[in-house]
């Protein structure tokens, strides 16, 4: 074979390879763009779901506030109003006893309003921090008699800003409510630990079984508003959550890891 033919053939092979490489680059670039678009779309869907969950959750909170005020506080105040009207109409009654009864009713209504407002907006967390807020919350749960909530604190302070402390409080609040309402738990233990730049929280309860797979499944479903809120807040805290069971027991364990940065 002549030299010139060899060189031309060799160059043709290289040209062919170069064209294949360019075609490969085009295909890869298009694939990358498609994957980016899909990722963006999924992120938007996830964001929309979270926003929807937040709004629905707010509506749910408002509904609970309304129901609590209507069912817990309004009847007490209504009874007190009736008593006061009765004093005005009938002067022969024992005013001292009746007034004491009305005072008790109004005190009870004030206490209910206080509890409800603390649950809606935990001022104690904002003013005194997460640890104080969680103790207040535990007192409210324990006052219901239906469930015992014990806190074991192995930290001196929580070095997170006010917003993050409120987020963390909301996460604990939601997990505790879920374990009581859906898990029917009667005893809850909260353990707080600090390991270097990491805050670890463990919630143990005797409610029904709920594993990490159930949690992930709930996040993908249309329901599970509370759990979506937990996930959203954990995301804001850049933390991690794990639903598990204590080995060789029926005790459910929820582990939270929050970076302290």
């Amino acid at each position, binding site marked *: 074979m002549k*030299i010139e033919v*060899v*060189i031309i053939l060799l*160059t043709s092979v290289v040209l062919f390879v170069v*064209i294949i490489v*360019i075609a490969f*680059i*085009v295909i890869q670039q298009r694939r990358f763009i498609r994957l980016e678009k899909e990722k963006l779309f999924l992120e938007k869907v996830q964001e929309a779901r979270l926003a929807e969950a937040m709004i629905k959750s707010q509506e749910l909170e408002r509904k609970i506030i309304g129901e609590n005020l209507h069912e817990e506080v309004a009847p007490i105040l209504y009874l007190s109003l009736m008593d006061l009207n009765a004093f005005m109409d009938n002067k022969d009654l024992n005013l001292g006893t009746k007034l004491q009864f009305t005072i008790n009713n109004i005190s009870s209504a004030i206490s209910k309003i206080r509890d409800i407002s603390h649950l809606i907006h935990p001022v104690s967390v904002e003013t005194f921090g997460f640890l104080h807020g969680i103790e207040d919350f535990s007192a409210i749960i324990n006052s219901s008699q239906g469930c015992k909530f014990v806190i074991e604190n192995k930290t001196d302070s929580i070095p997170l800003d006010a917003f993050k402390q409120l987020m963390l409080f909301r996460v604990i609040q939601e997990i505790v409510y879920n374990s009581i309402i859906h898990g029917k738990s009667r005893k809850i233990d909260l353990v707080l630990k600090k390991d270097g730049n990491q805050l670890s929280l463990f919630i143990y309860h005797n409610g029904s079984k709920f594993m990490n797979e159930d949690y992930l499944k709930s996040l993908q479903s249309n329901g599970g508003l509370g759990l979506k809120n937990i996930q959203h807040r954990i995301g804001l805290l850049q933390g991690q959550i794990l639903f598990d069971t204590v080995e060789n027991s029926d005790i459910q364990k929820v582990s939270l890891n929050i970076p302290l940065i």
Partner: protein
Amino acid sequence: MNGFILTSFISTVALAIYGSFKFSNTNPIKWIVLYCLADAIIEIFTNALALNGIPNIFLYYILVWIETFLLLLYFKSVSATIGSIPYLKLFIPVYVILLQILVFLSSTKSISPYSGIFQGLLLFVLGLISFHDELRAARYSDILREPFFWFVASCIVYYGCSSIVLIGAKIFAVDKEVFNYIWNYQNILSILKNIMIATGFMLSRK
């Protein structure tokens, strides 16, 4: 002049004229337009000198230098990696000196392939780096509709294959007659390059 050389010459001049209408001072395309203009002007001078029997090899070396310089500036403006190379400003004068040495060492009667091989491999690698950058950044939703793709692809095809032609000529130590024969093939590559650059010009927005 045979058919391939003539077609290559006409396409180079036509491309330079068409490209000058696409010149925009704020767009990296200006380097490609200047490249085409330089190509066409030197091509005209080369042929004029050849027709009058005057040696024109030195114009080839000047062309190699100008082409590389302009394409380096183009790659610098379109590729983040190449643009961020801190030694690029140092590289250009070093390259000029290196080229002068190569010209000095070269014969004035036949083309020395070293500068061409060096230029070809350099621009081929820079083209691949630009594509690699695009694969990472994914700036364009349809890359085939971007002038960037056609300009860089033309560089990869033309300079990658030209290097092989020159390396082959060097390895097999071909005589002048054989070299002129395989140089025809190089003209086919030049026509292909001109078509690809023209496509890029057509897709460009001023």
